[in-house]
């Protein structure tokens, strides 16, 4: 895990976002844009964390409830929520989060390995934790979070 954390974080910039009282971050390079919440069209036979699809300038963009995807309670989207449009593999995906909090530049020193206590779900996507100004930010690997997206693109 230490090795993975190192290899993934050599002086890169991250976007931090908040879901309830927890903070997470993803690589800024995978983020295409950040936009406000618009009601999504529900998809039949979709996993519960897929809120539906929205129109992103002509493209059909699936919206993922990050709160539910990360094992927390379902979000109740309001106009104050934001959607992070991220690129995962060949596909774009919209991540619904409570707010975007920060842009961080981190080096390997800032990254600590994921604690052993985390459950399997968390272990799958967490690539380490950051301690910044007394906050704890969990670094997420989007490819691990949506492996199906990537495998279908391939």
């Amino acid at each position, binding site marked *: 895990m230490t090795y993975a954390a190192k290899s993934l974080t050599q002086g890169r910039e991250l976007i931090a976002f908040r879901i309830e009282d927890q903070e997470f971050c993803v690589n800024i390079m995978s983020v295409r844009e950040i936009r406000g919440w618009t009601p999504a069209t529900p*998809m039949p036979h979709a996993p519960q964390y897929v809120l539906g699809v*929205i*129109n992103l*300038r002509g493209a*059909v963009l699936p919206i993922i409830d990050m709160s539910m995807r990360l094992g927390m309670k379902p979000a109740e989207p309001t106009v104050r929520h934001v959607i992070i449009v991220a690129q995962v593999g060949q596909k774009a*995906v919209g991540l619904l989060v409570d707010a975007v909090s920060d842009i961080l530049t981190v080096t390997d020193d800032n990254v600590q390995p994921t604690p052993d206590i985390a459950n399997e779900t968390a272990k799958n996507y967490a690539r380490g934790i950051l301690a910044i100004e007394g906050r704890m930010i969990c670094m997420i690997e989007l490819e691990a979070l949506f492996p*199906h997206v990537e495998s279908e693109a391939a």
Partner: protein
Amino acid sequence: MDMNEIKEIFFQECEEQLAELESGLLKLNDGDRDPETVNAVFRAVHSIKGGAGAFGLDDLVSFAHVFETTLDCVRSNKLDPNQDVLKVMLKSADVLADLTNAARDGGGVDEARSKQLIRELEALANGEMPAASEAPAAKPAPALVATPVADDEGFQPIPFSFDDFGGEEKPVEPFAPTCEILFHPKRELYAKGNEATLLLRDLSRIGEMSIRCDMDSLPPLEDMNPEEAYFSWKISIATEKGEDGVRTVFEFAEWDCDLEVRTVEEDHEAEAGKDELPMQPVPFDLSILDDGDDDATGEADEPAAPLSSANTAAESNVVPIAAASRAEPSRSEARAAPAVQQAAAAANPAASAASAAAAAPTIRVDLDRVDRLINLVGELVINQAMLSQSVIENDNTGVSSINMGLEELQQLTREIQDSVMAIRAQPVKPVFQRMSRIVREIADVTGKSVRLITEGENTEVDKTVIDKLAEPLTHMIRNAVDHGLEAPEKREALGKNPEGTVRLTAKHRSGRIVIELADDGGGINREKVRQKAIDNDLIAADANLSDEEIDNLIFHAGFSTADKISDISGRGVGMDVVKRSIQALGGRITISSKPGQGSVFTMSLPLTLAVLDGMVVTVAGQTLVVPLTAIVETLQPEASAIHSFGASQRLISIRNSFCPLVDVGRILNFRSTQADPVDGVALLVESEGGGQRALMVDAIQGQRQVVIKSLEANYTHVPGIAAATILGDGRVALILDVDAVVAASRGQSLKQEISLAATG
């Protein structure tokens, strides 16, 4: 521009040439004896050969060469292009296409077939001439000299010193025949990037030569046109390669110069070759060509005995045949080799020039660019709709100038959309042409004689539709020839023309393209189809089916999985596949068959896959789009018409027939309990297998043309949903996959398990 790009252009041109070749041959097959048609065919093969030579595609070159040799015999009237000859030639065109594809994509070709054809072609070229022709066969095969075909179009001044060439004639070497060459380049030679110096240099490599430059026609400086060619050269060369070798050097330039080659010992031979260079599809002024050909045509009256035209003098050991083929001594006037023919072609350019001028100029554009434009216009349409909607919502007066402007904008965007869609529209011709090859091949295999008649091949339809049309059409043509048409003997016994006819027609009808495939075979043998269906448990043994219903059984998936299907004199091989691919294109296929007279398959397809006519409906608070093509009728069910059936099924009676009700909201998991049918609207849809279903929706919002958006691009395929679209309010609406929904309604329990697994 790197080599690969040039190569890619070559292959694109090859495709055009092959299409030209095939259509020319088919014209000849229909009895057209216009020399221009023969020339067009010849040019097509020659251009492919020329280009292939430049890229070192030896297989292609050698095959094209033999083909060209035989065509040359046709061109010079030595070989009558009768049906048998054309059969071989059409097959050769197929092989040429295969070779081209193999050269482009790698992969192998059927070598035995091409070898066999080479033999047949050679036999044809040989066939009509006396065996006693003199023997240029001793001549060694000259190597191919690929004259540089530069792609810079600009004129270049000739950079050489005249002094170098001003010397006296060298003494003739005794053992090598001496050729006298009169070489007069025309301006086209330079305009095409050829270069006299380089030709002369190549010439100097094959033997000892002396050159005199004739500068007599050089005008005073003030009259000089810098783009005109004024010099001509008299060359005397001693080469063991003989005339053939000399002509090889000029192979790619022969149409753009006056060229006269004579072997000194045989005084009376001459040829002047002139023609437009077919490698250049750029139309050019033929009148210039006419001006300069006085000498050429004059010379051409001389009989041209062993002279092999430069066309044939290329690279392989079949040269002797080519040379011999035009060595027939009698009828020398008529036979003055290609020269007369070519002169005739040049003198007769009015028709071809006119047709060239009539063809509107075109450009090649990357498909990606067009698609991007189409996408953007789709956005524009959506945005315009959104704008209109929000203006209407905020403006109650309804007569403001904004409204008027918006209306104009709406019209403009619609026009832009139509024009952009027209860019993607292509004639169905290429697909139809491919079909003629399929017909030939399958007719060969089955030993039937088949005539394919195509109509409306210029009917235009979206390129994606064309691309996806080829496969089902191939299938159907195969079936039509294999199962539809009877064997020639049987046809004769029935009093029909032993040659069967397959007619392929395309036309526009009410915003769709209708493609009809008709054969004059035996029609569908309904008894056998019915028996087969009973054997396969598709229908009950005592089922009472109309003729039409029996015909439609052949589209049933279960029908074709049976073995030995070709025993059935009707069709059935993979017709379910055909139907499915037509439906995937948003089309329908119908069949009508008359025993003893043949069958007609009619396909109706949308003109484009980018937009779709749909009915916008509401289901459980969600907006859905149902493709209009699937809907037969809509109706408001009455409580008395609804009948429960079994545990959860319900049927609706429509004009005394019962039709299963399908609750769309339930299938798509939008609601957990069945809706009350009386509150909603039923859409009667035609589904796979011919049966009808009534889809229950809550309300109909209206009918609209929608732009199709892929769901798979960013998400995954969703069962029951074909695609997505964006409505006027900017929200995404899902387009219903009617067949999938109907299929799901059949095996409802299975569907629910899937959906539970997905949500869990």
